[in-house]
């Protein structure tokens, strides 16, 4: 691989972030132009690389320690292969749309400079993950993504909710990173290298390695990291709260960066995940998908519904990675990740457009009738919804179908789960459409709503195109070339492409479609033209459990209070009362007590002193005489 292009792609956003921070924090136009310019140029360069078909690696040495026999080497490098090339396009492409959209969305905020700096940093970090050549470099950018998300989620830091959400996101991610880092250390300790290329070669040369129990444990630990970033089941709690950030940030986090990182990383290191770890991963993904879909059906905040939808779709992807088997082909997950990036970004941006029009009202039960007022937003939103639900010929249909087909091949239980989630997805998405866009107006707010300006609608339209068409572009085959299986030969002609899923795995395709239809009908029956949610009355306590997210947050709060906080209190107690108290003050006290006792002797009376003096002399004399 030659040239400076890949480095430019990576570092332009960083330069933009640094430039804004140093010079243009107070100039909104300059900062926006810098940030947008950087990501758009990166996108253009990525397209150029993609078209050119560049492959290979470039690197420079970051740290190198060697004692002659063994060495510890960390490189900062760029790795261009189908996986990273496609992700580059997704990150910079979707990122560009979001950047441009942000210019409109954040126009009136005083902190625009800070916002765009954060956005650029976020893009930079994500690109670093995508291009990483080794585990530690991946981890470095992994952490940077964490801090960028903290910056952006907590952008409105004066709101306690936003500040708390930022903190929660970072800390939850850190729990995952803890496992990730240990996994990386373990990989290095066992295999002596952290470089993906070398590891892959090593694995290919010695297939028995994958059965090694230490490597199996390392796989689990590495998945912890992915679970944190991709918000999988035990660590999913941060994602819905992250909605406190500005809406374009949510779009970025949910579509192109951050949550995608986990799935991407799993695919990147897929070659060294053992069978046990994969099965575990599959089930975690499935559980996340189902739980999140269930929680989504009782949310009323437009962004939260989308957040749970993201969770659920991520569960799908992770499940697919798990189901693809040892040394298998997880390209379905990447395919879904890509299409999901398009339509989820579109959904969030559309939601942002609605929120902007309604002066930051996010409760869907205060909306209604927006399809007439905001046609562009509505129709693009609709396209994204259909894609998300998996309606042919939208992009989501193809990617979801591949997932279901994989599940059908390997695990009937997870296949059933996947189909159920597909139905639930359609249900909650159309609930959102019916309540917010088509149904009767439920407050005064929508009366004054009007379509957003072009700077906002253009990105919507731009994203609607791939949401609609990405299924036909052979993205899955491109990814598959990474994993060397190359099973899916290209169908010719668009009709053949459209019907390809039905030809390959008819069970999965029809099952998915049936779920979509059922979900749609249920939503139609329950929510068409409704002003109030009928479900709580029907489900009672279950609805409350769904609405309150199965009380995970409360559980974790209790858990943390019972463990870490209790430990901290204990440590503080020990520090204050035992070490600083008993030992230090005790020593101090006993010395002082001795001093006080000896002070009694100091009467100030001359004669007492001389008496003691005499007594001392007597003792000395006696001693000398006896001796």
């Amino acid at each position, binding site marked *: 691989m030659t040239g400076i292009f890949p480095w430019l792609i990576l570092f332009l956003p960083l330069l933009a972030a640094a430039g804004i921070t140093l010079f243009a924090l107070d100039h909104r136009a300059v900062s926006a132009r810098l940030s947008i310019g950087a990501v758009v140029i990166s996108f253009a360069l990525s397209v150029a690389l993609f078209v050119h078909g560049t492959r290979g690696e470039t690197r420079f040495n970051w740290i190198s320690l060697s*004692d002659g*026999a*063994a060495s510890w080497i960390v490189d900062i490098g760029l790795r261009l292969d189908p996986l990273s090339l496609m992700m580059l396009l997704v990150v910079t492409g979707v990122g560009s749309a979001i950047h441009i959209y942000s210019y409109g969305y954040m126009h009136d905020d005083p902190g625009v400079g800070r916002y765009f700096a954060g956005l650029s940093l976020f893009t930079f970090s994500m690109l670093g993950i995508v291009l990483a050549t080794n585990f530690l470099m991946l981890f470095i950018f992994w952490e940077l993504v964490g801090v960028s998300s903290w910056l952006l989620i907590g952008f409105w*830091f004066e709101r306690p909710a936003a500040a708390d959400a930022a903190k929660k996101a970072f800390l939850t991610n*850190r729990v995952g990173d803890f496992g990730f880092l*240990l996994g990386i*250390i373990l990989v290095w*300790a066992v295999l002596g290298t952290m470089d993906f290329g070398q590891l892959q070669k090593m694995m290919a040369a010695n297939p028995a390695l994958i059965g090694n129990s230490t490597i199996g444990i390392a796989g689990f630990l590495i998945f912890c990291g992915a679970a944190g970033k991709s918000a999988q089941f035990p660590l999913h709690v941060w994602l819905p709260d992250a909605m406190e950030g500005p809406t374009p940030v949510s779009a970025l986090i949910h579509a192109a960066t951050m949550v995608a990182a986990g799935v991407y990383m799993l695919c990147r290191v897929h070659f060294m995940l053992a069978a046990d770890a994969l099965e575990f991963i599959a089930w975690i993904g499935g559980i996340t998908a189902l739980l999140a879909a269930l929680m989504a059906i009782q949310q009323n905040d437009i962004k939260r519904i989308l957040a749970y939808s993201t969770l659920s779709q991520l569960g799908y992807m992770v499940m697919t990675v798990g189901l693809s088997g040892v040394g298998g082909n997880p390209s379905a997950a990447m395919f879904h990740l890509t299409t999901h990036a398009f339509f989820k970004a579109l959904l969030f941006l559309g939601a942002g457009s609605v929120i902007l029009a309604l002066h930051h009202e996010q409760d869907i039960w205060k909306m209604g009738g927006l399809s007439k007022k905001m046609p562009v937003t509505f129709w693009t939103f609709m396209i994204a919804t259909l894609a998300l639900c998996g309606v042919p010929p939208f992009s989501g249909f193809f990617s979801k179908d591949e997932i279901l087909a994989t599940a059908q091949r390997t695990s009937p239980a997870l296949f059933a789960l996947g189909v159920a989630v597909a139905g639930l997805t359609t249900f909650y998405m159309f609930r959102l459409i019916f309540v917010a866009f088509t149904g009767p107006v439920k407050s005064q707010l929508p009366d004054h709503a009007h379509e957003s300006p072009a700077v906002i609608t253009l990105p919507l339209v731009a994203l609607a195109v791939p949401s609609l068409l990405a299924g036909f572009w052979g993205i899955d085959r491109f990814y598959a070339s990474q994993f060397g299986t190359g099973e899916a030969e290209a169908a010719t002609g668009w009709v053949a492409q459209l019907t390809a899923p039905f030809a390959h795995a008819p069970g999965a395709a029809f099952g998915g479609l049936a779920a979509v239809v059922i979900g749609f009908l249920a939503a139609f029956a329950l929510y068409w033209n409704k002003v109030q949610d009928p479900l709580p009355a029907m489900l009672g306590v279950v609805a409350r459990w769904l609405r309150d997210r199965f009380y995970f947050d409360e559980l974790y709060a209790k858990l943390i209070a019972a463990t870490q906080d209790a430990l*901290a209190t204990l440590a503080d107690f020990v520090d204050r009362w035992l070490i600083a108290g008993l030992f230090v003050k005790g020593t101090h006290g006993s010395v002082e007590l001795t001093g006080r006792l000896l002070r009694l002797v100091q009467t100030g009376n001359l004669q007492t002193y001389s008496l003691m003096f005499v007594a001392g002399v007597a003792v000395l004399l006696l001693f000398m005489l006896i001796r």
Partner: protein
Amino acid sequence: MGLLSFLILCPFAGAVLIALTPRSFNVLFRLIALLTTFLSFAAATWVFFAFHPGATHVQFEEFCPWVGALRIGWHLGVDGLNVALVFMAALVAFAAACCSWEIKERQKEFYLLLLVMTGGILGAFASLDLFFFYFFHELALVPTFIMIGVWGRGENRNYATFKMTIYLSLGALIALIGLIALYVAAGARTFDIPELTRDVAARPIAASAQHWIFPLLMFGFGILVSLWPFHTWAPLGYGAAPTPTAMLHAGVLKKFGLYGLLRIALPLLPEGAQRWLPVLALLCLGNLLYCGLVAIRQKNLNLLIGNSSVAHMGFVFLGIASLSLVGVTGAVVVMVAHGLLAALAFALSGYLQNQLGTLEMEQMGGLLRKLPFVGTLLALAMFAGCGLPGFANFAGEVMVLFGAWGGHTTVVVLAAWAALIVGAVYMLRAIRTVLHGPLPEKWSGVADAPHAWRKLPFALLLAGLLLFGCVPRLLTDRIQPAALTVVRAVNGTPAALMATTQLPR
């Protein structure tokens, strides 16, 4: 006069100049302090970048015999272990001199003591003679106590001063006993450290003697570095110290104990090290985990920073205890990184204290709105403190964790927990309460750092952190040969990169 002599004597010359300046020239004191520390800093920068990485021998060496009979000499020089420390010390000293604008009374004495402290610190790190090594450290400690006692803040500064004085004197005393015992046991009759090292390598000290001398040095130096459970002086002392003193002590002078372990205890007492370092590896958990947990509960920003500073020392201890090339190199990197970070954090908290008059976190909130510059830097410092990549701390900490994995797996697991999660919890809690949230009415008059001079020290320290964080090779390439020598001295050749069994490739 060599460059090292110059950078050590510069602050002392400044101190003499200040002593000779009449009391009414307040501006002049500041000017002299800034100028001399800047000259030291410039010289140290030159030394650092002209230092030839990869070479094992001592560079910029200067030698001048002093007491012939005892073989004490003015022997200066830098190798991988101390070249970065000298650079960091000079940088922090310059920043501390810049931050001294908050001192308004008895300026003459303050700047004088500051310069003496600076000279002592630089001397302690650049000396290769046992006598001067110890002498300069003590010389730097005395002004520390006076500065805390006279210019300290907070109502219990007397208690803090006494506690710190007693602890540090005790630590220095124990270390001195250890050094004397070492000198006697080695039977080499020289104070020259390289010569002593060569002698001991040729004729090792008896194992039985090593086994009791090493703990003396370990705990003596350990108390100076706030090794758990001898750490309680540190948060309290730093909370009470005036900002420049806290910066210099927490940032630089404290590292003397660690440097002593690496420079003297490990190479001269390999058998003792083998026996006692596992104990150190366990005690470092006390620093990392326990002090981290304590930091979670702190309500005062300075106490929080102080506790976190104590916690970070655990990484250095763990790196030293790992006895692996990666670990020891990482330990030195953490020393440098933490020096810059602690100085930055205390400088910022000093600024806040100056503006708000309090450091109780409950009373703060939303300060980022009022203090975009200082607030951003504080947030960055906090993130550096919880090991964010891009800052030098990350490079060091991750190396320590890697290096120690083979020998102390369980410790590494807990240390990683402490680093990634406990550290993040208290740092983010601090940011959340101090910088985020609504701004209380009473802080509407708070002002950000007004001009470049005020911003300079913060920016310099942060730049150092970022430079070493983004290009850690600047440090590791210089440290590696010296670290390898130390590890080989203890383990015998070949030095294990990491003591673990690797699978067949």
